[in-house]
């Protein structure tokens, strides 16, 4: 599984990345967490606002920092 955190490196993007990692630990799952900071790449996923979350090339959320529980529901 590949999880991408889209965003330019702002505080909220790194918060989202941390939550993703926590969710993975709590579910004892393994996944590659990739940061996508390039605007062109962010645009490719149709994310209108950052931070955004892409799981296996599918945009699941944008414009918010998802909490750990919500990320777990995306991963389940």
């Amino acid at each position, binding site marked *: 599984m590949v999880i991408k955190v889209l*965003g*330019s490196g*702002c*505080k*909220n993007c790194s*918060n989202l990345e941390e939550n993703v990692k926590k969710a993975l630990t709590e579910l004892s799952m393994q996944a590659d967490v990739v940061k996508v900071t390039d*605007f*062109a790449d*962010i*645009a*490719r996923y*149709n*994310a*209108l*606002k*950052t931070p955004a979350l892409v799981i296996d090339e599918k*945009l*699941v*959320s*944008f*414009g*918010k*920092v998802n*909490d750990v529980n919500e990320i777990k529901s995306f991963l389940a």
Partner: protein
Amino acid sequence: MFQLIADTLVYDWMALNASEHWVEALHFFIYDSLKIGFLVIFVISFMGVVNSYFPVDKVRDFLTNKKLYGLEHLLASGFGAITPFCSCSSIPLFIGFLKGGIPLGVTLSFLITSPLVNEVAVVLFLGIFGIKITIIYAVAGILVGAVVGFALSKLGLEEHLEEWVKDQLKEKFRQAAIKDSRSFKQRIPEIKADAISTFKRIMPYVIGGVAIGGLMHGFIPAGYFEQYMGKGNYFAVPISVLLAIPMYSSASGVIPVIQSLVAKGIPIGTAMAFMMAVVGLSLPEALLLKRVMKLKLVAIYFGAVGISIVVLGYVFNFIL
């Protein structure tokens, strides 16, 4: 209130003589830093809340489905004014709008106004020039976006988008609605994180700008610049627009300096044109746009915005 704090601090506690230049400069510095700092905190928090609830996808769908005889440019431009400007979101929004089927001209109206009328510029204007000038500035900025976007829509510029953007547009657009049903309380941490980082980023420039402004306020005689850059000098507007282009990174420091320049004789129209050019025509933004547009379109875009700003500067010098 801020006047009172500054008075007490400078004249009572420090017991300084109000007639000395450097005391006047110090008083100005304390008063303006307090007032602007307070306003910045208030406005960026408020805009953070607005932004958190603002349904960008709904706006996109609305603009896609409506044919409003040119009025859609005004709507897109107004939308650009209320979205917080951040270069990190303007390019994804630009592509997102185009992919959603919004015409290039309408999307450009959005893109032009987004930096031109942004929350930081507005709050600084409010703190420094007062409500009337701020409203005139905001309305003028929205009109520039609407008019330039409308004019550019007539030129058929789609072919000047970068190839990868054109490829993206060929793809069928589909996206399931993503709902955000969080409560206000749940949103607070990320609104706070955003507001704090904006505050930290701009305050050093604001303080620096106010300090320079304070020195000019205290030491340069009133009307000093009138002889060089007064209304009689017709080149003053275009020159100040050109001077503004490299100043983007320090936009929040420039406005307090402008205030002192206006107090010392620079006409308000020239000052406003300069301000608009500082935030609206920046090299970092040009580089960003170059990622999605070919050089020719970037040049047309900047040329058109620059010319409208110069025209506005003359108009304001004439009417204000």
